[in-house]
């Protein structure tokens, strides 16, 4: 059974992308030297610092002892410092979380794991006094084709997010229509 848990000190996220169920306490890791222990250490340091300062920034979906999905979210100020897309307005900037990405290993998709992760994010944000969650780079596509480290627009709307922006970007020589969505939870 899949269980959603906050990131704890025992395992700070350092493994991305998540291609298959992953036991964080096993030593089996990839071999690519551009993406090895040093990269993982930089990532761990970042997530640890954000967790210590803001309470948390990662939710994990566990099945037994293995991670089968995760959702990363960041305070808007942190997201902006990293160059992630955020809404332009600074209203509620200190009280807004930015959904960053969600990964679920292929065999666990279409089993409501994403819904549980996003609902857990909303619950966590409410409990900690955050007032808004925003998400960007949302594709219009239906649920199935919308999977690009995120959902397509229909799922966000179904869970209560409203469209807060609409824009186009060039992506691999294609002009793509994307959306921003937001949920007020104050």
């Amino acid at each position: 059974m899949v269980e959603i848990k906050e990131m704890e000190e025992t395992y700070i996220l350092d493994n991305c992308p998540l291609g298959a169920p992953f036991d964080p306490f096993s030593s089996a890791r990839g071999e690519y030297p551009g993406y090895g222990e040093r990269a993982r250490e930089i990532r761990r340091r970042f997530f640890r610092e954000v967790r210590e300062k803001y309470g948390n920034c990662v939710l994990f979906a566990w099945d037994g002892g293995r991670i089968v999905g995760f959702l990363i979210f960041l305070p808007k100020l942190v997201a902006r410092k990293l160059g992630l897309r955020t809404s332009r307005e600074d209203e509620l900037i200190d009280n807004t979380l930015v959904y960053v990405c969600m990964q679920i290993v292929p065999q666990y998709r279409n089993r409501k794991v994403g819904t549980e992760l996003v609902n857990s994010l909303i619950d966590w944000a409410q409990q900690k006094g955050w007032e808004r969650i925003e998400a960007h780079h949302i594709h219009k596509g239906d649920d199935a084709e919308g999977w690009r480290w995120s959902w397509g627009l229909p799922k966000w709307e179904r869970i209560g997010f409203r469209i807060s922006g609409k824009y186009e970007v060039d992506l691999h020589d294609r002009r793509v229509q994307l959306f921003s969505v937001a949920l007020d939870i104050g």
Partner: protein
Amino acid sequence: MKSDEAVVDVIHSPWCFIEAPEESYKEKLEEKWKIKIRESNMWEIEDDTLDSLPKHISKTIRELRDPSNLGMAWYAGGSIFFLNGERLDLSPALKWPQVEKILEARSRKRKP
């Protein structure tokens, strides 16, 4: 830095897909391609220290942090590469092998 060395600057955004090479791999790349690799981590760079960085790096970080800059906003993490101050246009696949190809082509061109 030696005068004939090229400089590869890498800006990491630490939440995802960063390609921070292992030290031994980095040394190997530097020696093989006669380059100097300089890395910066966006999380560790405060706005008030941007002016102390090479101009192409500070400009890129400023643009990334500007929420009204839609052109840059698609960038969502990972590592951005420059060769002698010019941003490299790389695909989303692993970056160092792509950089090596560019360096290889560059070195072929320089050979008499």
